[in-house]
């Protein structure tokens, strides 16, 4: 297996969007071992005109580079254009979004975790609403300030990708990002996490598993992030999950002022 150009930061793939990643990942997943020419044929529109600068394929190459950098796929072959591609899902049977978040959160290179760290920083500070204009400022004042140069483009890319994943809501008209995970993501994440906790239905354990593997859940004071709290309460009120507290439960968390020990996914 050859090594892709992994030196490039994931957060620097600013032209990409989540839909591109998901589409190419799904294509490789559906055609395990697909070779580059076949991949190109599926993705690039037919073109008889000249493409001296390789612009037709640049988006595909960019997407592949991101997926390789994130270790969601691997390539086998002498070079990118002669290689065959395989998916390497970290969470078997889970949606693409969870696979993506897992890789971004647990990447061995801290700089490549940049996309995850933006969210972690905002969650740590218990931010619920982040205007676009303030993101750069926040990251430059954070412990991750020196990871690389934070630019508006990188943070715009983060906001698009996080919005695609369902971690945040990117509200164009209000020029801000709402840090309340979308209901579907929270439910998928809880469903996954509850399968890996030791104590059946323990919310605290589930959130810790999510925090370590998927996305940040806890503020610097150890409380559940206010946005996630709202999402969990929403899930409960919409009867996707049931939250309750049992007296003397070994572990519990506070969702705002509400103490909860147990969670059950209902649908």
């Amino acid at each position, binding site marked *: 297996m050859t090594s892709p150009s992994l030196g490039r930061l994931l957060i620097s793939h600013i032209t990409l969007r989540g839909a591109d990643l998901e589409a190419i990942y799904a294509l490789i997943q559906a055609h395990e071992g697909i070779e580059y020419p076949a991949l190109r044929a599926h993705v690039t529109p037919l073109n008889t005109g000249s493409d001296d600068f390789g612009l037709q394929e640049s988006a595909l190459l960019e997407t592949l580079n991101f997926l390789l950098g994130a270790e969601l796929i691997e390539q086998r072959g002498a070079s990118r254009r002669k290689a065959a591609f395989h998916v390497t899902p970290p969470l078997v049977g889970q949606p693409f979004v969870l696979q993506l978040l897992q890789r971004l959160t647990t990447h061995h290179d801290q700089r490549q975790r940049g996309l995850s760290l933006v969210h972690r920083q905002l969650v740590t500070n218990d931010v619920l609403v982040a205007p676009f204009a303030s993101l750069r400022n926040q990251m430059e004042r954070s412990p991750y300030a020196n990871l690389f140069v934070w630019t508006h483009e990188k943070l715009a890319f983060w906001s698009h990708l996080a919005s695609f994943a369902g971690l945040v809501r990117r509200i164009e008209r209000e020029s801000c990002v709402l840090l309340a995970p979308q209901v579907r993501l929270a439910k998928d994440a809880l469903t996954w996490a509850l399968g890996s906790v030791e104590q059946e239905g323990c919310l605290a354990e589930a959130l810790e598993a999510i925090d370590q593997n998927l996305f940040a859940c806890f503020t610097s004071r150890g409380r559940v992030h206010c946005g996630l709290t709202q999402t969990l309460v*929403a899930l409960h009120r919409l009867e996707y999950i049931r939250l309750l507290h049992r007296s003397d439960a070994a572990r519990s968390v506070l969702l705002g002022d509400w103490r909860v020990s147990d969670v059950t996914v209902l649908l």
Partner: protein
Amino acid sequence: MSYPRYWQPERVRTVLTTESRQKARELFLSTHRPFQRIRVDFCKEPDVATPFVTESELRGILHAAPLSAHNRLFFVVGEAGSGKSELCQWLEYTADEDSRLPIHIPRSMTTARHVIALLRGRLNGGRLTTAHGTAPPMVRAKHVAVSALMLLYNTTDSLSCSRSQLEAFLSNESLISCMAARLEQDDDTAGKRQRLVVEADVEDICSQAGWHLMPEALAELSAAATDLLERAAGEALWLGDVHTLLTELCSRCVQRGQRPLLLIEDITAFQVLRDVLLDYLLDLSSGHFDAVIGVTTGFEKTQLAGAMLEGDLTHIHHRLRARFVLTDDQGCAYGLAEDVLCFSSAYLRAVREDRASAMPAAFTSDSYDLYPFTETALVRAFSCLREEGNVRQTPRLFLEHVLGAVLQSEDIPSVTLDRSAYLARPPVIFRRDQIVDDRLESLLRWYGTVKDRAVTLDAHVADFFGVHVPPELRQGERIVVPRISAGVRLDHVALEEQPRWDNELHELQHWLDTGERYPSRETLKRGIERILFSLGDPRELTGVQCRSLAASKVVYARGDEHLPMYLEGDSGDVPADNQHPKIEVTRRPSERGILEELAFLALPGNEIHEACSNLALTLEWAQTRWQTYHVRLRDVLQTHLGDCSVEHVIWTGWRMACAIAGTPWNETPHIRPFSDASILHSAGQSLWVEANEQSLRQAADDLMHWHDVFRRLFIGAFMLHDTMLDPVHCAAFSADPLLRGRHVLDQLATLPLRPLRTAPFKIRPSGDPLYEPLAALQRYCLLTGQLDLRRQLQLHIQELAARHRHLRAQRGLQFDRLPRLLEAFRLRCGQLGIAWREEWSAACNLDVLNAQTIRRLEDEVHELNGPVDHAKHADAPNVWAYHDLRHRLIALRCHPYWQVKETLDTVRQELLSAAQVRYGSDRIVPAVPPTYRRVLKELRATEAELTRG
């Protein structure tokens, strides 16, 4: 300000105790309210049919076993404060003492020493003894020291001091002497036990041993040593052989004709003894106990299950005789809500000193004297009980934080309830601008009766508590305050906006309550619209995901920029119909809060995160409405398109434009723009050249007029951005069986377009109505559908065969002579008075004609014959393949050879016509058909004639 009280605080403390054992037997029995609903699980008793039993039935179950029956284990499960202790206490007091020996272990008596002493007491007729009660103190002290050493060796926990130091200390003779002295003193005081070692003892022992420790080290040693020694003493001195003790207790009871009824209020607090006791009781054949064990829900699920070897409760549940549950999943005591008045009344009566005199009528309900509460206040307070955000409607919380708190407070009850951390404040549901006095506001909040338009209260209640009521609020004997909204924070409304906001919220609330007219509904609509637009525009029906600047979208363009909405009921809105969907807003109770917040959001200067108390919930609500409306709009479009989706139309339209232009694609599309205007304008002309193809020609030209619109729509619908197709979407359409055959084409051909002409679907950003390109596509599909492809293909086969024959006949042609012959033609034209035309010269480019060219052309004609023949014999001739074949055929027809041939034919024809006129000779009448061979023959004949002439 105070109010009349008919009780003493001391009496309140005596009656309203945290633990039921704190009350005297008579008081307990006078305040005890029977448990009417106890849920039964895992019941192995016969004749217990219903899921709920009363406490008397529960006692019946306990008493049902014969004397010799093995251990019977019962769990009483409930949240903290749900009445487990109360139930155990009641069972103790009401047990049949002839057949049962109740042994009640209260929550406060949960250390090993206490419990064993209690059991031994029962065994020995009440005298508390230890397991080693007869051994000399020195022996017992040595036993404790050795046990502590054993604990030290077995523990893996980190210690605050060094192990070697602790080991030396525990082996010290002075320590043993010290402990022996303490034990001797304990024996003298008949069971009143003191700690075996205190910090001062540790200091003395260390100094006697010559260890000079710093104060911090000494404190750490002291803490670790005393902890180990106390645990060792508990196990070594008090625990003894529990199994033997319990067995002996059992056998003695049975000999007396009694079964021991072990009532353990709360096993949660048990430490060392818990496992030993449970092991004994779970070994069903080990004795004859009826054991009732109280556990909290969380403890049962997490810690008790965790303590089991298997990690779950199956082992225990299989051995349970029954499991009695006092609270539901939400932490509410079963039956208490229905019984709250009676329950409160019993305690309030027990508290009151003067029980004979009647209380004011305002504080009575049915036959219950509830002073200083009313029925409304009690029910409301009960429903507001919370513990750390959880609904916890348990007797203990109610007694302590409602009844107890109020009766012991100096403030009026409502103010006390307002201050409680265990009560969620009811929302303000009346107009506060009319309430100046905070105490009146508080009183209305807890005691007020909520009606449709107002909150009311018996004025005597306020008078009794000394709360001033403005005259304008009094209506006879009642206080009446108009209602406003619940939930929305008025603090966030600018002062000048408050009257308007109050009014609008009042109208909103009125509509929510009754569904009646809602004059200021535009405010709510603007708020809803704002949250919906934050998710995107639901009227964009295609191209939502595409990021290409070249993309176009199909949009629903009815009305203005606002989203059409319908607020249900008689709000004043016109309901949606099938063709004109609207965002429908209902009045479900679960939506009330969200709608109030969204109306609030419409006020100037408000941000989404400020207006919405739960962003996730509001956004999810909005997402559902957004999606529903979006789907309905697509459905409307679908009704105009039959079986086709709008994507089918776009896919087919672009593919057809490409087919007409001669740049076809099959599975993998292209998005090449047709930059050459001449191709665009002549595509139809050149494709459908025959005279009878006029209508097809026109239809093709009309469709090509929209080629760029279809291209941009295709980019929007099927591409992620300029250079990347959406592979999943494209693959789905490539494999779509509807698109493989003629189905979509036939559907498009037969669509009734008249309704679509007026339908408000447009293409953004061009602004063209969707109808126009669709009409062009339909006409073309209709005409191609009417073509008899087999017949067309047969004609093409015949044409190709004729051309092939002709070309084969030209193999012997001497191309070098052609220019001379053409010159001869020209000369003859001059002789016969025919003007030679420039176009004939231009068309007769004889340089391109040679043997190789003709041979190659012959091969091409032959090669094309195969596919045409194949297409003709296919099951269903394919219109896409036909376009391709037709383009190839036209390319053949356009070969320069045929142009030369046609020109020479024309010249010959004119020449011979003129010659016939002039010469009148039958010899020179031209023959038909005009093959090139015949032309040459004519030329030769003409040449010979000219030579002769």
